[in-house]
């Protein structure tokens, strides 16, 4: 399907897309003026600008068939008010009800249900639109491509029709790699080059693997005697590790990505080196918990209480987390939780009297741990089609919202279509960038043809 969804700058048209052109158009879009224009002209402009956004990939005749003048709406009921009145008060007197003055006030304040904002609700049922709404793709066109290319399953079965109309309770799931690609920042030139080199290496695997294996062997042979010969060395390595972890965590968005990568890589290597001293090779690919504890035992770094704290933290208890230091003390930034963390540290440090040779403060441990987690969850991998470590693409947060009729689990990139979108007093669930005047015009346009 040819993409007619251009984002012209000459005439602002809003599309279902996260591009910066679209953002620019979105912020400068104004309601079309109605002065000296016939009702037909007003409806035409309203319909054409609304359709540029809503279901632009759907042919007009198909949308006309989908259009429904019946709009779903709900009224949130208050149990207390239902209990107070069985309806007879509202119909008492001559049928218009007896209201106390404060009730009259409340009735005046009650918002109207924006029915016409729901004009394009039937399109939200489409699979490609739902994928875009669940923030799994950066545009509906891209979502459509994911579906057509077979990266989407509905209720566990592959679904290749972007026009599939979701039923309430349907679960759709998109390949996480595609989602990361769609929502992640693109690769820079250098990263693309790295990826190309990596690919070439895999194409000629014999040489590459051998050399790597040799390197590894050499490395192990070198390191083993070192470790055996100098058990006291641990303190030094720990210091080195800490320094590296700090640089990683502090200079997050260093303006030189290549340099940052180098640092990350160095850190990775260092940790591998430390871990390879322990004989059990499973730790390297085991879960983070055991990796971390192994690291600590190897370096004789922790005291008992601290370990306990760590254990708690990893179970993600909100209370423990909030008091957790968020960054290293040396960093020149003032945080609101700084005083708290210091107090927390003192509290943990005072009761413990034996002090280890290579002692780490709470914050340092945390930094180390964070660096480890970051490395596991968000690794550098030049074979990926997006910039690694993953970060959201530019201007993504402008378009980030998830409507209520979807329940999304971002970890597995799956979502459930709970129900059809509804209008309620003051709110409509169809995400539309247009004001009521435009949507009403569009609604009237399609009513005419029924």
């Amino acid at each position, binding site marked *: 399907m040819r993409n007619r969804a251009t984002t012209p700058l000459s005439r602002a048209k809003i599309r279902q897309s996260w591009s910066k052109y679209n953002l620019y158009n979105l*912020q400068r879009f104004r309601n079309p003026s109605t002065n000296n224009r016939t009702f037909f002209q007003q409806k035409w402009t309203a319909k054409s600008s609304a359709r540029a956004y809503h279901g632009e990939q759907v042919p007009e005749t198909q949308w006309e068939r989908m259009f429904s003048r019946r709009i779903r709406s709900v009224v949130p009921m208050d149990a207390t008010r239902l209990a107070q009145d069985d309806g007879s008060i509202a119909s008492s007197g001559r049928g218009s009800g007896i209201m106390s003055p404060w009730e009259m006030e409340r009735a005046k304040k009650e918002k109207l249900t924006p029915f016409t904002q729901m004009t394009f609700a039937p399109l939200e049922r489409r699979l490609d639109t739902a994928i875009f709404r669940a923030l799994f793709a950066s545009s509906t066109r891209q979502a459509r491509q994911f579906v057509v290319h077979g990266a989407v399953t509905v209720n566990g079965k592959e679904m290749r029709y972007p026009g599939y109309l979701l039923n309430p309770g349907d679960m759709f799931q998109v390949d996480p790699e595609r989602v990361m690609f769609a929502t992640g920042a693109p690769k820079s030139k250098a990263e693309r080059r790295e990826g190309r080199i990596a690919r070439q290496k895999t194409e000629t695997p014999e040489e590459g693997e051998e050399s790597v294996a040799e390197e590894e062997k050499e490395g192990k042979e070198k390191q083993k005697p070192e470790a055996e010969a100098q058990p006291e060395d641990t303190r030094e390595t720990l210091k080195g590790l800490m320094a590296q972890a700090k640089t990683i965590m502090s200079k997050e968005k260093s303006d030189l990505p290549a340099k940052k990568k180098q640092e990350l890589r160095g850190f990775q290597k260092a940790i591998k080196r430390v871990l390879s001293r322990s004989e059990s090779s499973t730790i390297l690919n085991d879960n983070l918990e055991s990796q971390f504890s192994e690291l600590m035992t190897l370096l004789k770094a922790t005291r008992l209480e601290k370990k306990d704290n760590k254990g708690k933290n990893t179970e993600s208890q909100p209370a423990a987390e909030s008091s957790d230091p968020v960054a290293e003390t040396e960093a020149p930034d003032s945080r609101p939780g700084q005083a708290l963390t210091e107090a927390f540290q003192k509290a943990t440090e005072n009761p413990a009297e034996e002090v280890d040779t290579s002692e780490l403060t709470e914050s340092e441990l945390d930094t180390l741990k964070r660096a480890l987690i970051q490395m596991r969850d968000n690794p550098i991998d030049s074979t990926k089609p997006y910039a690694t470590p993953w970060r959201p693409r530019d*201007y993504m947060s402008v378009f980030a*919202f998830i409507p209520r009729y979807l329940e999304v689990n971002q970890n597995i990139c799956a979502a459930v279509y709970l129900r059809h979108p509804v209008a309620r007093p003051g709110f409509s669930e169809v995400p539309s960038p247009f004001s009521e005047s435009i949507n009403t015009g569009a609604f009237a346009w399609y009513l005419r043809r029924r």
Partner: protein
Amino acid sequence: MPPRIQTQRVSNSVLPYLSSTSSTPASSCTSLPPSSTSCPHRTFSSTSAAQTRLRSHMFEWLNSEGRKLRYHEPNVYKYVTNLRDLAKDTVPPEQLSKRPFPLNQNFVSEPILSEEMREEIYKRVAQDKKSVRAVSIELKVDMRRVAAVVRLMEMEKGWRTQGKPLALPYSRAIQEMVPTTRYSPDPRNQRPHESINDLPVHRLTDPQIFYPVSESRQFTRVDAGRVFSGAPRLPNSTVDEITNDPSSSISRATQNPHLIERVGKGDQETQVLQPADARIPHPYLVAHERDSIKKPHERGENIKRFSSRLQEEERAEAERRQAAEERREKKTAKVNPEDSRFEFRFTDVVVSKETTGADGRGHRAPGRRYGVPSYERKKGEVKIPTRVNV
């Protein structure tokens, strides 16, 4: 403005380590694409000058006002509506608007469930074996959403045990960009996620009906429902019964939906429209409120009655589901032949004058109809599946 180094705001407590993926300092804005504020002179370009000028305007805006929107910060809603507030930098992030579209007053970015909330819902349903209804009332989350969360979490756990790669950095970034509903262990502090007692507007209530009633008569929601569906007026004895004990009459309707009175003939036959109290998802909440208005001093008793009503509702629902299952089981016989890879399911059908009708084309009779053309190959015939069974 001093450069933002990291998450200045309190970062999401479920995900302590998220700052690593998110939040970009303004300092890195220096590496923007070269702004074309001075219109580049292209000697050999065939592009019209207007387009280039428009583009230059766009990049000018992106580098000045739009720069604020480029990178996300945790818990700062960087919507276009907030452009001016973000530029001033004086508005606290809690007061920023949650409307993503400046022109649409009726659409707000509503909070999603936080990671801990999802865990809690899963724990209560899957481990504590609480019913979806009960969890929905406790945490103020819609029942369908509770069920969906459990289903998704089940899948996530499966993925974790299988060691499939998850989109963790993506998930963290989204949780920071979108407002979230946090879980608080104290039930009194739990913020409601959404309204759980939504009454869907029924088709029958669309028309405005002029229905004269004598002033001496009490006209209630029950009567209004009957008027809307064209049912005759209730006898006085039943009206008295309902006014004396509204809660039990409502629970009778919600627990035995097949006993609800029907009106109309043939295809027009429908159930009488029930009052709002019976059509909302949690009718026993209304009964509880009624109790607490009538007997304000028996708080403990009221709560006991409430929980018994809730259990009654759950029991009735489970019974209904089981009965339907049994009916289906009874109608089908499963045969597993030894020499076949397949199971054969025999369903009983009835072929008689009633089902086939006089001309033999009745819809309730088994089999495809004879003499009906197949439109399979017709142009424009939609072949997209309409349903995917779980």
